[in-house]
């Protein structure tokens, strides 16, 4: 992941559920690195 101000941006597989069905996308989310 990428460091930013003591926190780390991590790539995450994120689930999306719509009325048509469920799928996943890759997004960035930060994790507490302290």
């Amino acid at each position: 992941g990428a460091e930013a101000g003591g926190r780390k941006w991590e790539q995450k597989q994120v689930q999306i559920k719509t009325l048509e069905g469920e799928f996943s996308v890759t997004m960035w989310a930060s994790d507490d690195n302290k």
Partner: protein
Amino acid sequence: AKSKAVVPAESFDWGRYIFSNNTVGAPVSCFKHAPMGTCWADIEEGVRIEVLNSDTNLSTKVYWIAEIIKLAGFKALLRYEGFDNDTSKDFWCNICIPEVHPVGWCASSGKPLVPPKSIQHKYSNWKAFLVKRLTGAKTLPPDFNTKVHENMQFPFKKLMRVEVVDKNYLCRTRVALVEQVIGGRLRLVYEESQDGSDDFWCHMFSPLIHNIGWSRSIGHRFKRSDIAKKMEGQVDAPAQFFQKVKDVDQSVDWFRDGMKLEAIDPLNLSAICVATVRKVLADGYLMIGIDGSEAVDGSDWFCYHSTSPSVFPAGFCEINNIELTPPRGYTKLPFKWFDYLRESGSIAAPVKLFNKEVPNHGFRQGMKLEAVDLMEPRLVCVATVTRIVHRLLRIHFDGWEDEYDQWVDCESPDLYPVGWCQLTGYQLQPPASQSNRD
């Protein structure tokens, strides 16, 4: 002391106010004492969230994905995915409300995302659209809602006893009981108040409150109460709940009685005044008197810690182009420290004894915020940073004359981000209109 009247809240809309004035709100990260103040670094424009879909005919609560277009404190201007460059349905929302979630929360909670009805038929394949829009984009940390909840817990509880400055007699403290806690702000009712109306509002990190026994430990004046023992349920707030001050070495080259300095007048926070060290207490505390305005009995001396950002060495105002309020009745104007020290046979407190630390606070001139009117500390008002001198901020209360402005430290617990009142349930004082002021 100048204080403002309460203005009816009506329906003040921070979002519209920020937008129509083309201004910015100070970021939450400027307010370390505020909820989320230390974990806001990853909240920025472009971040995607899941939020209630208000553009639907469905009877159940449904959500859709939105992008943060602009941030102002806790409030964000949001645009639902699918609106592209269409700003017509943009809306302001407090990011810390329970209906805001990281992308993925709906799926994990078994709730389907439903597009707003005004763009329902814009795309035939929402999956392809969302994959394209969201891949590589940022969202909130997975524990965002937990963090918000944790940050909204406060250790002070009703019936806890504290020592607090006597608002009618600044030189002494009194015992008071916590009556209410809102967003970390305490409504303290002085012990012996018959009907509970003799109260004082301050933040739990305020330098004006201390643990029971503090006054005696440092030699501060204290109003003893006639109440012999605690009522049922009352408990002394533990010492670790209170803000710590820096340890100082008072053994050599320390402040002495009679030394001159400059200090924010606690009874007129708009003014920095010529002042005198009246009494040196223990643990780095000083009793300060404002020259020319002191009561004969010293009843308006005020306790500042030597590291307080509200006391300055002689010459601070001149160096920083701030108007220094000369002693009342002093006629030899313009005021010159050199002459005044000679005439009064006194010396200036050494510069090395003052706190010169300037935090990287992040405030900029023109930023909007919610600020306590320290002359009427139950009021939290719409305000603007109008000047910055090192760590000192000049706070202007929107709609009020400049004479109500206050000098406030950048780390003051009496400053809050835009949206703090909404988040905590505190009443916000909107900008005054001409009729309100009258």
